[in-house]
Structure formats: C-alpha cells, structure tokens
C-alpha cells in the first residue's frame, strides 16, 4: 500500500536526508573555521560542473557500482558479502595476468578477456566462503572478512616479488602493453577541437558497469535464477518446498557476487592505472556495502548511490585541493550521508508520511477494509532486511 506518493518516497525523503547530512557537515566545517557554503559550491562544481568533474565522479562511481552490485545481489539471497574488497583485489590479479602475459591485438579483445578474467578470479575468491557456508555452515561474514586479509597478503607477496618488475620501488606490475589500453571518455567523446573529459580516468568500463546494472536487474527480476535467489532470500522454508536447493543458490549467488566485485578491477587496472597497483581497491568493497544498502539492493538504486559516492569522492578531492579542509572531513561527510540516507531514513520518512496521511485524511475518507489497502508489489526493491546469515 502507498502511504505517500511514490515521488515523495523515492525523491523527497532522500533529498531531505541529504540536506540534513549536509547541514551537520556544514556545522562541522564551521567548527573547524571554514566556510561551508563555499565548500558546497566547490564540491558541486568540482564534481558535477564540467566534463572534467564528471570524468572523475563517474570513474569512482564505476568502482562503486560493481562492488555495490556485488553486495546487492548477495543480499537478495540473504548473504552478507563483505568480501568485496578481497574479491576485487584478486580480480585485479586476473586482469593483470591476461594483460601482461598474453598479447592483445585490439583493446576490445583485451577488454573482453579482462571481463572474463576479473570475473573468474573474483568468483574464485568467493567460492571457498560460499562453499563453506553452504556445506559447513561457516558464517559467510567471518569467512569473507578473512578472505579479504588473505587477498591483501597474496597481492603484497606478488607485487613485491614475483610480479614486480625489478629495479623499481613501486609495488605494482609493469605497465600493461599498448594493446590493452581501453579508451577513456576523452578518447570516446572528444571530437575535433572540443576535448572533453581531459585527463580524467573515466573509461569504457563505466559502460560495462551500466550493462552490469541492467544484467543484474534482469537476473534478479526476470530470470528463473533470480526468482530462485529471491525466494531463497525471503524464505528458506519456501525455497525448500519449491525444490530450490540451498547449496546451489548460495554457491551460485556468491560466485556471481564475487564476479561482480572482481569486475571492478577492470576500471582501476585496465582503465585507469594501466598496471596493477597494490591496494588499488582502496576499500571500495566496503563502500559497496553502503552503496548497496542505500540503493535498497536495486540496481538502479545502486547506480544512483554509486554516483552519489563518486560525487563525494571527487567533490572531496576538490575540497582538499582548493581549501584547507582536511581530507578526513570528506570521510565525515560520507559518514553523515550514509547515516541520514541509510540508517536514519525513517527519521525523515515517518514525519513526511504523517504529513501526507493528514492531507489525505482531510481529502478522502479512509479506505475500507480489504479494499485496495494492502501492500502492493512496487515496493519490491527491498530485499530481506538483514542479510547477515544464510541460516
């Protein structure tokens, strides 16, 4: 049932939440002796005001789309994948291996190969936690945390030893050969004299991410597998009754989730750095949790939340470039945004709902019982509320 109009639900409430987050951020900025209005202007123009700004915003967003989708997909099966960081780290390894050790005549082929490799490596890294959850009941939250650390160690080993070109201090692989360089937004959108997205890292991977959103959306809501995943997530009893095997769902979902997280590596290795750098994931797996939860585990929501975080990252960089607001202030702002739009959502929603209810009460009489009152489907984006366990 709709307590308030849909536009209020999807636009008004998040907007008010954002304003609240901004207001508190403003107070903190004031407290450290800076001008919040100025800060806001810098963030907005710096992250949205030009093709340059978008080139960074969308680059970060691309990372978060992948890790956000990874968490979101797993959420639908009530699995809490906090291993996105490790899966993306290992995904990067996959990209590096194909880029460095195989010859690529054209970037399209390299991109395809990178998609396959990063997804496969990411999936592989999720496979053991998935198997242990399905077969041994080992809690996926612990095992994925553990696998994050193991992934970091693995990469440290490889990038300080076997995969590091000798004679350099850099903890990174050698630069990838020419054939693997995928086009950036600049290459794609500049024409003639007008150069757009100059010097920015956004690249074709963004479209892979958009495609991934569409595919995940189709997977979840249009396919039999998605139907089974959601059924399992909502009710294990019903899934068993319907002949939907828990082992299959847990393993397949986690493999797909790991693959999505792994795909993120294309953006930062093949797309941006053109080499594999130690710790290149930079906690994007954890941002992915916030993105997925804020996006209500719906690919469109994930997309929007990822862009919001891209905005915060790029806007934050601009902020520290042009003011003396410390870079950690950006983390505070992120935290407030997550808090208000994610966790304190109802603080805004409840009064707004009441407002609409009052208006309606004055307008039309209360709907009769068993009329068109009950909960209807459109609010389906919400997955099981606490995807911490697959018990």
């Amino acid at each position, binding site marked *: *049932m709709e*307590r308030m109009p849909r536009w209020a639900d999807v636009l008004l409430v998040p907007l008010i939440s954002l304003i609240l987050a901004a207001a508190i951020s403003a107070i903190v900025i004031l407290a450290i002796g800076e001008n919040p209005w100025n800060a806001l202007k810098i963030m907005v123009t710096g992250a949205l005001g030009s093709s340059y700004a978008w080139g960074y915003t969308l680059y970060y967003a691309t990372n978060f789309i992948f890790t956000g989708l990874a968490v979101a997909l797993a959420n639908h099966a009530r699995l809490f994948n906090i291993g996105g960081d490790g899966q993306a780290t290992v995904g990067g390894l996959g990209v590096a291996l194909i880029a460095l050790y195989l010859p690529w005549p054209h970037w399209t082929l390299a991109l395809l190969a990178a998609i396959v490799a990063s997804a496969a490596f990411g999936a592989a890294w999720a496979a053991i936690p998935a198997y242990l959850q399905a077969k041994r009941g080992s809690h996926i939250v612990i095992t994925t945390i553990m696998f994050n650390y193991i992934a970091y160690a693995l990469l440290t080993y490889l990038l300080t030893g076997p995969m590091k070109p000798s004679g350099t201090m850099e903890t990174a692989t050698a630069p990838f050969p020419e054939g693997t360089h995928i086009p950036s937004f600049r290459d794609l959108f500049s024409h003639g004299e007008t150069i757009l997205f100059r010097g920015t890292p956004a690249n074709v991977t963004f479209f892979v991410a958009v495609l991934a959103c569409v595919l995940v959306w189709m997977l979840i809501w*249009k*396919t*039999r*597998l*998605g*139907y*089974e995943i*959601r*059924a399992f997530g*909502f*009710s294990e*009893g*019903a*899934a*068993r*009754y*319907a*002949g*939907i*095997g828990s082992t299959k769902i847990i393993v397949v979902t986690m493999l797909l989730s790991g693959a999505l997280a792994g795909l993120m590596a294309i953006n930062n290795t093949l797309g941006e750095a053109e080499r594999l750098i130690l710790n290149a994931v930079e906690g994007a797996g954890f941002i992915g949790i916030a993105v997925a939860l804020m996006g209500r585990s719906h690919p469109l929501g994930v997309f929007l939340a990822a862009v919001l975080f891209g905005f915060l990252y790029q806007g934050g960089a601009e902020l520290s470039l042009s003011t003396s607001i410390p870079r950690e202030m950006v983390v505070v702002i992120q935290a407030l945004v997550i808090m208000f739009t994610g966790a304190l959502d109802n603080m805004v929603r409840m009064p707004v709902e009441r407002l609409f*209810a009052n208006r309606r009460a004055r307008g039309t009489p*209360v*709907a*009769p*019982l*068993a*009329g*068109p*009152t*009950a*909960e*209807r*489907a459109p609010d*389906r984006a919400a997955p*099981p509320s606490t995807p911490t366990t697959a018990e």
Partner: protein
Amino acid sequence: MALDAASPSAAPPAIELRGISKAFGPVQANRNISIRVMPGTIHGIIGENGAGKSTLMSILYGFYHADSGEILIDGRPTRIPDSQAAIRAGIGMVFQHFKLVENFTVLENIVLGAEDSGLLRPSLARARRELRQLAKEYELDVDPDATIEEIGVGMQQRVEILKALYRKADILILDEPTGVLTPAEADHLFRILGNLKAQGKTIVLITHKLREIMAITDNVSVMRRGEMVATVRTADTNPQQLAELMVGRKVLLRVDKAPATPGAPVLEVENLRVVDAKKVERLKGVSFTVRAGEILGIAGVAGNGQSELLEVLGGMMRATGSVRLKGRPLDLSGREDARDRREVGIGHVPEDRQSEGLVLDYTAWENMALGYHHRDAFANGPFIDRPAIMKNTIDKMQRFDVRPPDPMLLAKSFSGGNQQKIVVAREIESGPDLLLVGQPTRGVDIGAIEFIHKQIVALRDQGKAILLVSVELDEILSLSDRIAVMFDGRIMGERIASETNAGELGLLMAGVTGEAA
C-alpha cells in the same frame, strides 16, 4: 440487533469496552466497538479472518493502542498504555501466535517479566513451586525445564496459560487457542477453562469453531469487518445463525460429496522410515496405499510423524523404505528434491502456508509459480514468463475466489484464508496425480473452509489421489473416504470413513491398537 446479554447479577461487567476504534494505516481494524463481558463467564468472540478480533483483544491487553474509546475493568475506567498495565489490571492473554522465547525453558518463559528481584535464582525457585501448585490445581502439567522448541504446540499453549495464571490474571483472553490443538487437547483445554470459570475467573475466547462456541461459552459476540454485529446468549442461538451473522450470507456447514469410486493405486508406501536431524526416529515403518479417485485421511495428534510423512513424499526430507507413484519408485535418498516430485505429478499443499507454501514477500502472481517456475508454461528459456504467469494467476484467483483478486498484491497482505486459497489453487491446478494436503484449513474461517473442501472433493472426483493430513477430526471425518490413524511414527489402523466415528479414531490416536478398540 446488538442485544445486551447482561447476566442477571448486579456486579459490574469484568470488562467493558466503549466505542473502541483502531486503524492500522488505512485499514480500519476496529470501528466503534462496544462490548461487555460479565465476571465469571466464558465469553466467545467469533468473526471471519481479519474481522478485527485479535486487534480488539490486543488493545485490551495494552499491546496496541486504541485510536479512541474507553476501557472499564470491573466498572472502573482504566488506562492501559502497555501490557504491564494490563497485567496489573488482572488481565492475561494467550495470543494467536504464541509470544514465547523458543530457546528458553518453560520456567524462564514463565518468570520473564514477573521476576521477584534482580537475581534470577529466587524467582525461578518460587516459580517452580507455584507451577507445581498451578499444575495440580488446573491439570496443567508441563516440564518446567524443557525448552519451548522441544515441546509441542499444545504444551506451548499451556505455558502461555500458566504465564497468565502465574501473573494472577482474573481475566483470561484466549485468541484461537484450539487452532493448533488436537481434539483431545482441545477437550482438555475446555475442562481447564471450566475449572477457571468455576474459580470465578472471566474468560474471553476467540475462535472460528462454532462447535466450541456452542459447547462452552455463556455469551457470544460476532464481529464482521471491524464492527461488532451482535452479542447473544449462547443458549439462545445456533451454529447456523452464528455462521450467517459472521459471513453475512448462507453457508453450508457440511461437506457435500458423492461416494468415492477408487481406481488403480497411485501411491504405494512401504515400510517408510525417517530419522531426523536430531537422530530421532520419526517414522517407524509406515505402509499404506492411496488409489485414484479417493481421499485418504491421516488422522493423528500433531507430532506423530504426519509432518515428516508429507515432507518425505514432497521431496523435502530423506527416508528409507519404498514409495511408488503409479508403479514407478521414487528416490528417497535425498537426491530428488521437491521439484523432482512435482515433475512426476505430486502436488503439495504444505502444513505451514506462511513459512513453506508461500514466499510472503512475493506477489500473488510470483507465488502462483512457486515450485513450477521452471516449467515451460511459466518460463522462456532462462527467463520467467511473467505475462503467462500473470494470466494464469488472474484466472486462478477468479476461479478460487481469492479476495482481493489482485495479482500484484504481496502474499503477506492476504488474510490467512485467502493465502490458503492461493496455495490450494496453485497445487490443484498444476494437475497432479497425487495431491498431498496438510492442515488445509488451519486458522481459516468458515467461508473459506467450505470452499477449500469443495475444491479438494472436486479434484478427487476427477480421479486424482489425495492424501489428507489434518489434526481436525471433523475435517478428516467429513472429507476422507478412508482414514488411517498415525501414532508414534506408525499407522495404528485404517478405517472406512463412513463406518467409523470420532470415538473409535480418538482411541487409535491415543495409541490404543485396533484389536483393543
């Protein structure tokens, strides 16, 4: 027509509600309800699913807050802001869905919220003593140290009653207490209620079962769609009249069916054995046959292996022994799952529609495909064929009179009866050769029961085999053609439905063997 059934005594009513209204969002659950319950009486409340009975009583118990209206206890206006206040006012309530902590012991559940001091030990000791006392007084024996998940629903209900009595309740509200009880357990409960009444306690009893109303209540109130439509003296009414007050139309209280014409055996079960996860043997060698065109009813007290039987046949549990469907053996080793069972033609209306039969957060149309979502009719390759399912759902909803007939509604938004209709529609319409039916009408109102029974009989008349498991003896007796009684994982005996009666079955259900009966 709301006649006042005040008893002749001059004492003020134990409970008086005046003009109670309550809305959940846009749903008006209670509308200007007034009722008086006299002390020392058993007062029944009946009404269809969703009529607002539980809501009204929850308001009295301080669980919900009325939007408007007044509560008087023993004639005094009383504010009941929370359950603590209700308890203080001497009210105890046994909810329709028990409010027990599953992994706590009985004793812990009883002292919860009624502890004497900060330390548990003395409270538990006192509770243990008083429990022994209460158990003697009211024939309410329970093992105080068993955990709730270990004991059956009947026992759980006793715990709920003991909880109320331990808190010195003078007014006891029971919401659909017999929905989960066997006839024997129900009779026992009524004896207890009689005891309590004799001690001067006031009892409010919510139920769908008119037989129970007639048997033990003094007065009865009827609710419909959030309103109180009548309060009458039980002695002055009859079931037919009450049913019509409830539903607002004429209803048939008996199943109308022609004699069966059994055909070839469809399901042959031999020496079926099940050991569950806790290594307890649940089925100890069960054998029976169900033929085409007949309904085999399995009677028995809950927990004697019926659930496991259905789960094994439905592909949700592994077992040993032999099961043949139309002559072909089924794999019981766990390699075949529920989906494989559907493929060979077994439909299954599970005992628990909420946790098994439906995905409550799925829409009606999505639920119509549950278990059949892989079938060609419902899928295009890897994709779900939504238009096809939708069309199918609209059709089924109409034919099975699911209300409201809106395929986009979430399953949890339907009332229990309508939820059950969705499950029954899906399973019957999938065209099974064998339909497994567990507790088809548990918690379902009279109108819906009537309908569901008709559908099951119609399927039988198409020549399909039906295995019916129910703890309602009435249902077993009126619906089945043959009846098998289960006790302790074994079949105690088989009877022709028309040649047996509740008494004989009751003995079998208690484990008294056929020869002795």
